[in-house]
């Protein structure tokens, strides 16, 4: 079984490769050295855009500063060759490694603290700017005068007499980068990339490490960008801070990719292919001088126009047009429902012996002046269904956020199988076996139902096994029929089931369900209750927040009642229901003296 949608993604990558070699073929057949040099420029930008797209488009972390990596590549190889006589191919690798390290440094702060995407964009832009200024002042790197490349022509020197040599080199480099990015994109990582781009909270809840995914993609992007930097230096034979580190280089990379279609595999190839020749034509028509700047102006205008009028770029626009013409596919395109499968008992990474799974001790949480939780303690026992109830604003969801690692408590601790887990990242908690759903459903808008569940399954399994898990979970949760639908298109009831499915696919020991039955019809609620019971019978431990009292009383083994951030009562449903304090919290107190 292959993952659905893979064929489409492969076709797109193949098409992108074909386009690259069409450019090469056309330029070589034309025989005109001028066309060969234009084609070389096009492919260099294609290479840069594909590299940028790996982090900016596919992971949604927009870099305004890839020029920094380009410059690092160009300067590293040129400096090493001039000073120590290092072969430029080796210099290329060294520059790539250095750029990847620089990318890690730039990404560390915004990714570690989950700062706004805007801060990441700004930090990358500022990094490029700082680097340009610093190199301006560095004697050893030639300052504003730049550096020259002096080496006789040969393949091992990455210098050629004939321009076709450069064209073929960059075509091979661009194809290699495209292939590497495509392979990553089509494999497990691609699912994590798309998940992080679509919804970071949901990705973290599915066990995906946001920090690692972003840092990896940034490192790949930086390495590939630096490779093109070395190529540029060898081709032109001269570099200076403005031409390789300037802000306009960074912006042009982004601009070509966005106009082509960021986040698609084809877009970064199409963008430069359309815009670079257009710019060349404008430049020629205006004949050098200051007026030639018009082509930069036109690039900027193209970016603004595409964002305003054609979101998704050229590729996105064309795809929309094709889709609106094609009749809608039947939902069930991949055969009938598979034989009913069992999700199976918990697959916790480290089996826990004790009967108490989760221990919440003295948890407090303060938001500014608001004490959302105060000294709350309870335990979750193996194999039970524990209900967490209380009036609105009691702190139930805050409690879940702390259990799931989305918030840190101001006081107290949470232990899971004896290990302290408060303060761990959401994905770390998920991987230990606690999975949560969200009250306000969190989905990946551009992923299908199947891909969402598959992403969660891939955290713990290899592809082949994950496909099986995803299939079993979808059948169990009644979503198999809808597997090909986009998450943005499913109904509320299905979204709630999808939340549960995503959590189940991570292979949890403890399932945290936040109002997963809110807004469901009685029939849907019954189905949900059946599912929960059968999961418990297979050994899963469930904690649920619920307002639907029928469900709570019906299914829970024990209840914990919160009111205004404090623990009010706990015990069996019947005991809690007759507790006078609980009745007062829900129905209000009788006026004193009556």
């Amino acid at each position, binding site marked *: 079984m292959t993952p659905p949608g893979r064929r489409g993604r492969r076709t797109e990558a193949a098409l992108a490769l074909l386009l690259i070699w069409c450019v090469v073929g056309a330029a070589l057949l034309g025989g005109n050295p001028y066309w060969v040099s234009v084609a070389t420029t096009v492919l260099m930008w294609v290479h840069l855009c594909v590299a940028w797209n790996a982090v900016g488009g596919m992971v*949604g972390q927009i870099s305004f500063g890839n020029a920094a990596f380009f410059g690092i590549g160009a300067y590293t190889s040129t400096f090493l060759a001039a000073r120590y006589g290092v072969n430029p191919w080796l210099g290329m690798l060294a520059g790539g490694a250095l750029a990847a390290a620089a990318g890690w440094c730039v990404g560390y702060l915004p990714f570690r603290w989950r700062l706004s995407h*805007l801060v990441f964009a700004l930090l990358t832009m500022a990094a490029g700017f700082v680097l340009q200024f610093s190199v301006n*002042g560095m004697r050893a790197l030639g300052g504003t005068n730049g550096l020259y490349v002096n080496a006789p022509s040969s393949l091992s020197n990455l210098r050629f007499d004939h321009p076709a040599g450069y064209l073929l080199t960059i075509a091979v480099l661009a194809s290699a980068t495209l292939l590497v990015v495509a392979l990553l994109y089509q494999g497990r990582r691609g699912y994590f990339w798309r998940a992080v781009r679509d919804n970071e909270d949901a990705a973290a809840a599915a066990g995906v490490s946001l920090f690692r995914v972003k840092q990896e993609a940034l490192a790949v992007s930086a390495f590939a960008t630096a490779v093109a930097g070395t190529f540029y230096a060898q081709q032109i034979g001269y570099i200076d801070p403005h031409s390789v580190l300037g802000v306009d280089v960074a912006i042009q990379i982004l601009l070509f990719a966005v106009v082509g279609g960021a986040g698609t595999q084809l877009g970064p190839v199409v963008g430069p292919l359309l815009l670079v020749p257009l710019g060349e034509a404008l430049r020629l028509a205006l004949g050098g001088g200051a007026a030639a700047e018009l082509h930069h*102006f036109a690039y*900027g205008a193209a970016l603004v126009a595409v964002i305003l009028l054609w979101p998704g770029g050229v590729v996105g626009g064309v795809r929309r047009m094709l889709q609106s013409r094609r009749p809608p596919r039947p939902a069930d395109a991949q055969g009938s429902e598979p034989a009913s499968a069992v999700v199976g008992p918990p697959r916790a990474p480290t089996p826990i012996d004790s009967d108490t799974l989760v221990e919440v001790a003295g948890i407090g949480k303060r938001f500014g002046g608001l004490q959302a939780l105060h000294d709350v303690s309870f335990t979750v026992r193996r194999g039970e269904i524990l209900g967490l109830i209380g009036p609105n604003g009691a702190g139930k969801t805050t409690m879940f956020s702390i259990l799931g690692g989305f918030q840190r408590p101001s006081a107290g601790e949470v232990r899971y199988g004896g290990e302290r887990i408060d303060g761990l990242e959401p994905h770390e908690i998920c991987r230990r076996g606690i999975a949560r759903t969200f009250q306000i459903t969190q989905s990946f808008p551009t992923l299908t139902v199947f891909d969402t569940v598959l992403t969660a399954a891939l955290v713990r399994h290899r592809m082949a096994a994950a496909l099986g898990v995803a299939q079993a979970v979808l059948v169990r949760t009644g979503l198999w029929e809808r597997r090909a639908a986009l998450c943005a298109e499913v109904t509320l009831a299905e979204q709630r089931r999808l939340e549960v499915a995503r959590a189940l696919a991570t292979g949890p020991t403890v399932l945290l369900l936040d109002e997963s039955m809110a807004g469901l019809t009685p029939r849907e609620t019954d189905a949900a209750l059946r599912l929960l019971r059968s999961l418990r019978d297979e050994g899963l431990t469930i904690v649920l927040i619920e307002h639907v009292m029928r469900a709570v009383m019906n299914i829970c083994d024990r209840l914990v009642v919160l009111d205004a951030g404090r623990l009010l009562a706990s015990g069996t449903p019947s005991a809690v229901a007759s507790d006078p304090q609980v009745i007062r919290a829900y129905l209000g107190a009788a006026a004193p003296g009556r």
Partner: protein
Amino acid sequence: MTLDLALQAAVSGLLMGGIYALVALALALVFGVMRVLNFAHGDLLLVAMYGTVVLNQALGLHPYASTLLLVPLMGVLGWGLFAALIRPLLGSSALMQAQLTIGVSFMIQSAALMIFGADLMNVRTSFESSTLPLGRGIVVGVPLLVAFAVSVLACAAVAWFLARTETGVRIRATAQDPVMARLCGVAVPRLQKMVFAASIALLALAAGSLMTFFHVTPTTGVQFSILSLLIVVLGGLGDLKGAFVGGLMIGLAESLAGAAFDSALAPAVIYILFALTLLFRPRGLFGRGSIA
């Protein structure tokens, strides 16, 4: 670096910081009211700077006089930009808006290069070299001092307006919770247009004061964009007080770093200072900025 030299650098840095504060304040105001981080902010300042040069060369206007003309003109430019480009994208992702403003920045920069070329341009005034001794050998240029005074006064006026007028209260309400403000009867879209136009008009004030002692090239805009963006994030996204203090801090740091090391490393020092601050105060200096 001697103490006197450090003091001199500190004084001129702080004065320059006052101008950064005004530029950053305008940026923070826009972010606060419409959650748009304008990467073309410095380039709009650049437009006003070139405007000052043109008015001076064509009509012989003193930069201060041309400010009077440029403030309404820049306001109109801001108005038009908002209506044509910003308004249609309100509510879409912050990154889309950022990329759009980067496109605008790119257009302004290339237009400047086309029209004015890459050379330095400045404005000659009668008092450009007059200075004021402050004792201990510390000297400040009168134009810089005036620019500082104008900027700080403008910031104070904005603060007064926000705190004391009805429109100011509406603006603050919108910045805190646009949906709630709308439900309370604030005409949010109109307010946003007004704030955007006013912020861009404020840039004309900064430009007029700057051009009495500063020069302009097509890349000056990007420089100011990055500086003011760093300041706004440093101060906490949307936090006006943070932006003001951040402006002073960055001005001070830049000047001290320039005196201590060499000027090529000054941006690196600012970057490191910025990153360190963010490491310990991810929500800005006063911890009140929005994180998303």
